[in-house]
């Protein structure tokens, strides 16, 4: 089983990385880029088969380690192995 955890900055927190990316894209001639945000994806490979239980555990991982909730939001997507 896999969990995809998306971690991004909360709205209102300045994202210098995103800003630099959009500026550099503009500099390269990609004028259509209005703004950019950069976040992280953490892909976890998990043992077990109970998706619901696993998701609850992943939520705990996020709160405990994967996200810093002072500045970050997170979102979890569970996937069965393909």
């Amino acid at each position: 089983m896999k969990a995809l955890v998306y971690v991004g900055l909360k709205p209102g927190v300045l994202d210098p990385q995103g800003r630099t990316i959009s500026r550099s894209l503009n500099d390269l001639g990609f004028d259509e880029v209005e703004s950019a945000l950069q976040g992280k994806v953490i892909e976890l490979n998990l043992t077990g088969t109970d998706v619901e239980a696993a998701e609850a555990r992943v939520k705990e991982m996020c709160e405990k380690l994967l996200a810093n909730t002072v500045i970050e939001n997170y979102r979890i997507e569970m996937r069965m192995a393909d």
Partner: protein
Amino acid sequence: MQTAVIRFPASNCDRDAAVALEKVTGRKPLIVWHRETELPAGVGFVVMPGGFSYGDYLRSGAIAARSPIVQDIKAKSERGLAVAGFCNGFQILTEAGMLPGALMRNTNLKFVCRPERLKVETADSRFTKTYTAKSEVTFPVAHHDGNYFADKDTLARVEKGGQVLFRYLNNPNGSLNDIAGIVNEAGNVFGMMPHPERAIDPMHGGTDGINLFKSILETI
């Protein structure tokens, strides 16, 4: 006074911190390995040193903040233990929730190493009592993630409570309100991005950092 420096995997200012503590106390600090679950008895002051604990992977200081020894230090700090974190140590203290706010990537996205002038905001604290309020000091900075952030309410509370001890005169990283170092509400846990432990020797970085160690060690 027995002091201690915590050593995490890839701490790299642990020796610098130890040299500073020995210089001021005349006694070698204990070096405590991160796997320990309890601080040795009798330690009155703990330094979380600079470096790149766990490679700064995930977020600077995040993984170290979850190590067993930090849980013990956190509990003891709630009962009054004096703790200071410099650079990565500051990041660890915010990640552990021992200090408010967070340290984000520098706004120009680059690592910055330079001597930085700071204003001592107040001498009314355990960590700055031997400085003159509003005086200027120079400490080196060397970090990639030193951009202090806190939400509006937290920031207002920190400012109002006089918790800001040092401010940059020439903000190198985008920190809100030019904040370089803060103390917790109780006044016993302190963190700053600049390196006072690299400013204790006229041959290397000047001597402006000595008073910081003197201040805290006098009060314990």
